[in-house]
Structures are given as structure tokens and as C-alpha cells.
């Protein structure tokens, strides 16, 4: 449990939200309004709309609407993000984090692509189109074959390889005790050497030595 939660429990601050009186402000949300904005998708599939899409159709759509920035094979153009590759690089010096190599859940790809892509034309894709694009990105990451069809029903059966590598924040065990041990104030080390220096290149008002 995080230190934050512990403090709250000790302080007894977990007040019941039903305790205070209502102020009778705002109005009831209509079902159509909630449906229009409630676009999030969870790893357990909650929020996935009905629909399906094939790798084949996804390839065409991706080439049309996504490849200009993300590359034909999700390898990235210039400094735009890569969507494929990077497998087994996470412990290397320059890890490459993609949907295939890093993301824990496929639902995040569905959610994010509908929510925010294509960049500058967010929330413009239909559910079938998003299924197509997610299927194609899975294919680019060698997770499915080229005849694969993704749909609401088989969606949660797809596990991404890095799912098990995430854990909760453990700083309160691994760091806070070690960094709470008091300090030395005088004669703390015998000598000091400069081991690295930033290059004077970012916008700066000082000259180089």
C-alpha cells in the first residue's frame, strides 16, 4: 500500500461520499449524451462497441490515414512515434517502446486510436475502422496472421507480450526507507571530481568557456 493511502486510513479521511447533503445543482445526463462521451475502453472489454475489422482492410486504411507519420509498417517517419517493433529491447541501453514491445493491454490501442487519431482529426473513425487498424497493428507486431479478423468478441483473448512486466509503484519499499536515513553535513567526502558536463548548445545566454 502506498504511503499516501496509509496516511489517509490513519487519518480516517475515507469519508463516505453519501454523507453530505446534496446541493441540487446540475441536471440529469441523458443516455444519448453519456453514450456520445463515454468512449473509453478497459482491458476487460468494457466500452468496446460492436464491430469487426480485418488485417487486410486495416492495411489499406493505415496506408491512407496513418502511414504518413507512423510509416507503412509502423516503423515511424522521422520523429513521429513507432507503432511496431522493439521486441526484446526493454532491458537494452536504448529501449524501443511500441504497442508490440511495451504496451500491457490491447484495449488501450483501441481506446487511444479512436480518441486521438488520426492526429488532427480525432474521433472521426468508425468502430469497424478502429478494429481494422488495431488488427493491422497487431499484424505489424507479428501477433496475428494476415487473414486475422478482430472483433468485439475475440478482442479480450489477445494478450500482449509485455503485460506481466508491469507492477505497482513500489517506491515506498524500495526507495523511501533508503532515502530517509539522515545526512552528513561536514567532511562528507575526501575529494570531488567533475565527471560530466552539458554541451552549451540549447538556447542560453552564456558563452562557452
Amino acid at each position: 500500500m502506498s504511503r499516501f493511502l496509509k496516511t489517509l486510513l490513519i487519518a480516517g479521511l475515507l469519508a463516505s461520499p453519501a454523507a453530505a447533503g446534496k446541493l441540487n445543482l446540475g441536471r440529469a445526463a441523458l443516455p444519448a449524451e453519456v453514450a456520445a462521451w463515454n468512449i473509453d475502453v478497459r482491458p476487460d472489454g468494457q466500452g468496446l462497441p460492436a464491430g469487426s475489422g480485418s488485417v487486410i482492410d486495416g492495411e489499406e486504411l493505415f496506408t491512407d490515414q496513418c502511414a504518413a507519420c507512423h510509416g507503412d509498417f509502423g516503423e515511424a517517419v522521422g520523429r513521429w512515434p513507432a507503432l511496431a517493433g522493439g521486441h526484446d529491447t526493454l532491458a537494452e541501453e536504448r529501449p524501443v517502446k511500441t504497442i508490440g514491445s511495451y504496451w500491457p493491454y490491447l484495449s488501450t490501442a483501441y481506446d487511444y486510436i479512436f480518441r486521438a487519431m488520426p492526429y488532427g482529426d480525432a474521433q472521426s473513425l468508425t468502430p469497424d475502422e478502429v478494429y481494422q487498424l488495431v488488427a493491422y497493428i497487431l499484424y505489424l507486431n507479428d501477433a496475428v496472421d494476415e487473414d486475422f479478423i478482430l472483433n468485439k468478441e475475440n478482442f479480450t483473448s489477445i494478450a500482449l507480450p509485455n503485460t506481466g512486466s508491469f507492477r505497482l509503484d513500489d517506491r515506498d519499499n524500495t526507495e523511501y526507507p533508503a532515502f530517509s536515513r539522515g545526512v552528513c553535513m561536514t567532511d562528507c567526502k575526501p575529494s570531488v571530481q567533475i565527471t560530466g558536463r552539458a554541451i552549451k548548445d540549447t538556447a542560453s545566454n552564456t558563452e562557452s568557456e
Partner: protein
Amino acid sequence: MSDKTSRRNFIKAGMAASAGLAGTGARAEGDPLITNVQPWAQELGDGVNHMPYGAPSPYESDTIRRTVPWLTADSVSAINFTPIHQLDGIITPNSVCFERHHGGVARYDPADHRLMINGLVEQELIFTMQDLMRFPRENHVYFMECSANSGMEWRGPQMDGVQYTHGMIHNVMYTGIPLRLLLEEAGVKTAGTWLLAEGADSSGLTRSIPMEKALDDCLVAFKMNGEALRPENGYPLRLVVPGWEGVTWIKWLRRLEIGDRPWHQREETSKYTDLMADGTSRRFTWEMDAKSVITSPSPQMPITHGPGQTVITGLAWSGHGTIPQVDITLDGGVNWHKARIDGLSLDKSLHRFYYDFVWDGKPLLLQSRAHDSTGYIQPTKDALRKLRGLSSTYHNNGIQTWAVNAEGITDNVEIS
């Protein structure tokens, strides 16, 4: 300080001052800025309404947010930095609060803004800004730090200026509604243990927040430093999540969904997770640990006055509480001195510290070290690297070193 040394320093300082006077062209007859009547002392100035919304003096035109174009693919999903080297006190002026957007700045009429509460509640609700103005309000000063602040420094000293190494931070007084009151209005069901906050901008930014935090100290804010939020800071409505990484402070807040588990959105999986050396990752690293930095001298603020009386100043903060102590070293950590914390010491707010001393003109290796109210002490960058490796991007709260040379020129360095 003995009488003798203080007298010696006084004489030295006097010599430096007269040298300075000679430099600015003082003649035997005196400083012409004093002996001649200046135009601004003679002619009338601008009338009261010359500038209905004020602006800084043109002589302060250097105190601006700056960006580093090569950090991101384009300027719409990018970052700029607060000019912390030029600011003093603890409050960040609204015009220079750093910006980070994922889909550009959404600009729209607040009359068109809606806040929805949906999910595991007794009654799903819609609020207009007018409705929200009828809720009880609170005022709080909080720092807001992007967890990628200092992230460029993981592999060694990189950025040439404290604005770039530590400028993804601001400290503002928010006026807002306790989030708890809004949730009470909808009536959270007992199964409702998580909240999803969502923005109305083109990135539709989302983060999952546990109910304990939502009910504790979060605010739904509409004012910063007394005036409306700036568009780049989420006008007309943003979430304030005290002490937690900046990306959770959803701007253009349009929706709060209540659920029974986290959503694992893009900004809490692909981004804002901390990759360790062994290839595993920490997720939901919410709290910003204690950190401090000397803002002057720093690479953008060299010592230009030569030896003599000098002010070292900087900022310290912790997402876990207040800052009771900041230590300063002039010699790279051999000896440490307690800095003077001045002004307000508020929970989860920036603290301002000073160390006043007489510089002998010899090179300095400056560091500051924050202690927070939980007893946590800001670690060195190497101590963090030992535990986390070099690829964790976020949450670099390690001690910063500045090397000042005999001319006062200051560099971003690391030391043994």
C-alpha cells in the same frame, strides 16, 4: 565571521563597487543619471488606462517560456519551460507557467463547456460553468510538476540551463470546487473505487485516479492566481491533483467517470510508466518526490558582479508535504550549510530558499538538497540510477550540480 574578516570583505566589496562605477562611466562630477534630470522625471507618463490588461516592462522581455524544438516531433504535442531562473518568491505568474499539450490548446467559449459525471453513480449528471459557480469554493497553492521534468538528465548532464532541466513546474493559487462535493452530488456507488478524468481537447487526455485521492484533496479549478485559467492551462476548467504528476491534472476537464477498476489509458501505460533496468516497469507512479534546485546562479544566470556578497537562491518542493530544510554545498558535497527558507511554507507547494555568502571568486560546485516533512531526503542522481537504471524517463528528482568558474560562468555538470 570575525570582525577582521568582515572588515576585509567590506573593503573588498567596496573596491568591487567602485570598479563597477568606473565601468558604468561615472566621472568626478558624479553619475549623470543622478546629476542630470532624466526625461521620465520631467515629462508626463501614460495615463491610467493605457494598458487595460497589464504587461511586464519591455526590459523584462527575456522572462519568457522557452521550448526545445528537438525534444518532440512537432509543436502541437510538445513542451515548453517556465523561466524559473528569472523568477523569485514562490508564485508563478500565469503568463509564464510552462505548457504541455498532447493535441494543441483547445480554445472555446466557456458557455459551450459541459462537465459530465457518469458511471457508477446514483445519478449521472451534467454541469454548465454557471452551475459550477454555485458550488462552495476553496483556495490552495500547489506546485504542478510534469513527471518528465529533468527526464533529459538521466544519462548525464544534457540541458544548458535550469529553465530546461527543471522548468516543467509551476506554482499557482487555484480557486476551485473540492472534487468530493461534485462526486457527492452524483452519489458514488460503493463499488466506485476509481475515477477517470477526461479532457475536451483533441487528445481527449485521460487518467485513472483512485477514489481515495479524488475524495481527499483534488479540486476542480477555474481560477489560477485569482483570474480565469489561461487557455493553455485548461480554460475554463481543470483538475488539480495536489502532489501528483502533472499529467493527472486533466485540462479542459469535460468528464469524470466512476468505475470499479483503472482504465489503463495511453498516458498511464505507453507513457508515464517507469521502465527499470531489468525491463520491468512501474505503473501508477503518482507522487512527485522531494526535489530542489538552485535557480541562480545557474547556466542562464551566471555571476556577473565578481567576488563579494552573493545571493544563492532556489526552489524546493515535495508531493508528500512541506519542506522543513534545504542544505546547500559550495564545494560539491564536502560540506553542507542550511539554507534559509523564506516566505510561506505550504503543503505541496514550492518553497523559496536563499543562501547569502561572500564569494571569494574561486570556482564553486553548487548543489541543493531538500528534506521533506516525511523525513525523506532528496537523493543523488547516481543513487536513483543505481535503483532504476537509465531508461525510466520520469521522476528524476536527483540532486543537481552547477559548476561556477572564476568568471562566474555556470555549467550543468555531474560530480563524483
